[in-house]
């Protein structure tokens, strides 16, 4: 049970988030998948910082990742609501206004 286990787990969680983002068409679920990916990166940063605990750089980065993820989520959800006003659905396959 070393740091490698944490790294493997973080890559598995990132894969879950990435496949959810690629496969699902629901914009809400896609935003949640982005959160899953950002969280897996946090696991990675904290595990490396635990392995080299001379300073707090990894935890600092994880702190800023959480803050930026919160800002990103706020903007994403407001875009989602604006999109819902136009299309009356959350299906990303219908988001074709810029396609033609």
């Amino acid at each position: 049970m070393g740091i490698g286990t944490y790294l493997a787990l973080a890559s598995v969680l990132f894969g879950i988030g990435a496949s959810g983002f690629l496969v699902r068409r629901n914009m809400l679920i896609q935003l949640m998948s982005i959160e899953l990916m950002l969280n897996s990166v946090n696991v990675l940063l904290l595990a490396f910082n635990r392995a080299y605990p001379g300073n707090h750089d990894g935890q600092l980065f994880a702190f800023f990742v959480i803050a930026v993820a919160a800002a990103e989520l706020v903007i994403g959800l407001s875009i989602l609501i604006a999109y819902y006003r136009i299309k009356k659905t959350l299906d990303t396959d219908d988001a074709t206004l810029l396609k033609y």
Partner: protein
Amino acid sequence: MTIPGATMFVVTAIFAIAGGLITIWSTRPLRAAIGLLIHIVSLSGMFLTLNAHLMAVLQLLVYAGAVVVLFVFVIMLIGPAAEVGPIEGRLASRTLSIAMVVAVVLALSTSVAYFDAPWVEVPDGFGTVQGLGMAIYQQAAVPFEIISITLLVAIIGAIAVARSRTE
């Protein structure tokens, strides 16, 4: 790592993976939000095994307290339309995307699983409120203040994007 830490890691890892799978598999967005909540709470427990106490608390406060509540609020606001019908068509591209993600994850996780750094003893105050707080205010005071501006811009941007047009 001590045995209680290892047990904690295994339990939280299982719950984190299960929560992530619930999030991406469920057709109903509310269940997906609950899966995200399970994922976040178990990751917060995992942060405790990594001596990151303040980050565990922040994870609970920001993610479970704000992010999941925001998701549930938006689901409530949108109502039945938040549910999108079953996936149809383009089976090949979806299968290909899943296969590529699985291949990348397998390659990555099998290669990094053997990376081994010895768990050295953590110095006093590592990851506590005092330790991380001193690190934030000594090394990253300016980025910490810029974060507040970022959040302010995000709030204003959210209002500007999401408000209803009244022309």
